[in-house]
């Protein structure tokens, strides 16, 4: 894992002092409220519905036990004893007091963490595949690239006042677990015909009120030219992105209005200019980054403890069945710890749960932890024969929910319970869905299902790319939930189709039940997933299930 250099340490400390000074200068009137706002946002501090919210970066989702324990202590000391893991590999604290924020930032700096550029019109926390460094299907670990981009984008003098926020995601596998196609820049590690490493570069993806799938702007970019090229994209965007309307200010709109071919030519022209002055990144630095992420020394021995437990414990079997993923080393597994207990708040973890996760990681998991954009925690390196012991610790903390990838593994934004922008509740809807399908006992029969819920049009809950997407709006003072079908967040990314009229909160759960029943009836075998069935059959049979009254009228 990457450890802070002396410069990182110097930088984050200086930044905390700078922010402390900015808070003071806001209070003495040197800074107007308008001037202070982007400064606090660039330090992760939002003003929410009921309180301030502090969004802390977990760069590319990678952290360790010491950092997790510090997050737990922050939750206990300055918040209400819990934190909320988000869809961008951040953790949010919902109840800090403004006066405590500099002290919290100091506590973060103590463990090589920060809240820098987790908000505001700048390059945000760089995200990556949460199985990075562990997945059997990996081509290249995306984290050295992500860390390079983190450093390069941090306090970049040219790109702190962009037209709008800017998100970068990196994937190192043919399987896309980082939603790269829904980011301003998506990078996929590939090799050219000669075997040299590089990236496929996508731009202009994004969700929000105008959802778009990213387009390929460069089929192959040599690894050594990454920063010059990314800088060129950002420069073109900074100079030409729209600033007249914040809803049309993201890169995706510039791509859409300019056309990808023309914009690509502008970027290439900027890149050609830029390269004249670009001497590359110090190769020693690149090597140091790569070696910072070299895999731990795996213990390849087997005792058979895993199989013995599987045989005698159906609870463990169910968990192993859904929550484990193939590790590159056959004696190991990648374990997903679900933060979606039935009826719970997706993404929330209590301080004690965080400590339990830290203990497992430290004792059994080569001290590595990941936060996923799906709002779960990943223990990327657990030896198979240590899984029974890890499971017991999880179970003692209520973290053993065996539902990864199932209908109750829901992404949901904070919604009206916390967020100042929300137009509807998200968390209670997620809770109801998970309770309902758990009560029906058909979760496993349904199989792979991604439900994603956003409480407003800004789409923080990624509803456009959910197999079933739910968007909460407000119609004449009443919550109204629109359903989209067939969305996909992976390498075969697609935006869901809007099914039809929205549902009230009361109508929504029965409608989803009809939808799922229709899928179970229509699928060609129990192996055909909801998404596959939807792609094969098209929207009509599913719409008919959602809106039975329409069918009756037509008959």
């Amino acid at each position, binding site marked *: 894992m990457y450890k802070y250099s002396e410069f990182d340490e110097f930088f984050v400390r200086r930044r905390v002092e700078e922010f402390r000074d900015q808070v003071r200068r806001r209070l003495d009137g040197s800074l107007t409220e308008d001037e202070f706002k982007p400064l606090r946002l660039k330090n992760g501090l939002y003003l929410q519905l009921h309180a301030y919210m502090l969004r802390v970066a977990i760069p590319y989702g990678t952290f360790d036990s010491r950092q997790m324990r510090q997050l737990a202590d922050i939750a206990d000391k300055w918040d209400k004893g819990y934190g909320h893991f988000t869809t961008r590999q951040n953790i949010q604290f919902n109840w800090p007091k403004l006066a405590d924020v500099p002290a919290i930032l100091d506590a973060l700096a103590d463990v090589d963490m920060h809240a820098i550029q987790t908000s505001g019109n700048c390059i945000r926390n760089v995200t990556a595949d949460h199985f990075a460094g562990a997945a059997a299907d990996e081509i290249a670990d995306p984290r050295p690239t992500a860390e390079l981009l983190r450093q390069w984008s941090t306090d970049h003098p040219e790109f702190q*006042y962009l037209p709008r926020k800017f998100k970068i995601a990196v994937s190192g596998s043919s399987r896309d677990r980082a939603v790269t196609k829904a980011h301003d820049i998506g990078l996929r590690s590939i090799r050219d015909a000669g075997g040299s490493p590089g990236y496929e570069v996508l731009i202009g993806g994004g969700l929000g009120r105008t959802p778009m799938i990213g387009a390929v702007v460069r089929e192959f970019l040599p690894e050594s030219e990454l920063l010059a090229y990314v800088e060129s994209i950002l420069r073109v965007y900074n100079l030409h992105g729209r600033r007249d309307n914040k809803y049309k200010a993201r890169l995706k709109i510039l791509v859409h209005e300019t056309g990808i071919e023309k914009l690509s030519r502008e970027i290439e022209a900027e890149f050609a200019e830029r390269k004249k002055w670009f001497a590359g990144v110090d190769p020693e630095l690149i090597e140091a980054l790569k070696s910072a992420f070299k895999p731990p020394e795996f213990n390849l021995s087997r005792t058979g403890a895993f199989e013995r437990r599987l045989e005698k414990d159906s609870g463990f079997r169910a968990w192993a069945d859904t929550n484990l993923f193939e590790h590159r080393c056959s004696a190991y597994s990648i374990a997903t710890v679900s933060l979606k207990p039935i009826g719970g708040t997706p993404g929330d973890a209590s301080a004690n749960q965080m400590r339990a996760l830290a203990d497992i990681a430290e004792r059994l998991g080569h001290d590595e932890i990941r936060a996923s954009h799906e709002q779960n925690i990943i223990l990327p390196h657990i030896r198979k024969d240590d899984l029974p012991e890890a499971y017991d610790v999880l179970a003692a903390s209520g973290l053993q929910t065996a539902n990864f990838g199932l209908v109750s593994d829901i992404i949901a934004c904070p919604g009206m319970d916390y967020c100042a922008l929300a137009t509807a509740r998200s968390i209670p809807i997620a809770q109801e869905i998970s309770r309902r399908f758990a009560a029906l006992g058909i979760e496993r029969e349904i199989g792979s299902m991604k439900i994603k819920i956003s409480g407003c049009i800004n789409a923080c809950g990624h509803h456009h790319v959910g197999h079933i997407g739910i968007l909460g709006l407000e119609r004449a003072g009443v919550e109204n939930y629109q359903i989209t079908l067939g969305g996909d967040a992976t390498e075969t990314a697609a935006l869901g189709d809007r099914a039809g009229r929205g549902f009230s909160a009361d109508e929504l759960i029965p409608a989803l039940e009809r939808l799922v029943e229709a899928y179970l009836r229509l699928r060609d075998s129990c192996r055909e997933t909801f998404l596959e069935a939807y792609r094969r059959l098209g929207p009509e049979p599913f719409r008919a299930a959602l809106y039975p009254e329409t069918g009756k009228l037509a008959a």
Partner: protein
Amino acid sequence: MAVIVRDQGFSKDDLDGRSFIGMEDAEISEDLSLAIELPNHADLPALKTLLPKIGAIRINFPNFGDGRGFSIATKLRHMGYAGRLRASGHVIADQYALARRSGFDEIEIDDELAARQPENQWISGKDWKSGSYQDRLLKTELAPTR
């Protein structure tokens, strides 16, 4: 009266009395040390042939949230412009280091801002030379600096 902010602190405008002219006027001028005013959406390639006879460029920031000026400054430096580069308009003290690191030499602010954000807010702790990620990563870079 405008106040000019430099690393040393506040000072008077030593270009006072000189008028900054637009690009069109610059093209027909025979002055060998022009001072020109550029909007933050200027077409820079068109400026290339003029650069040798430009002594000072002023770039306006219509409001502090509009960061186009930072990219214009960087591009001018990449084009080889080594003359004086001034930011003017709504630039706040918290942006001083960003402006310097993007290639600006100085910032022109009005009296109201100079009173609200006095000199010490611009220079104290704004040790913009003390190191940045960009300098560390790209330290062998050849771009002209002043």
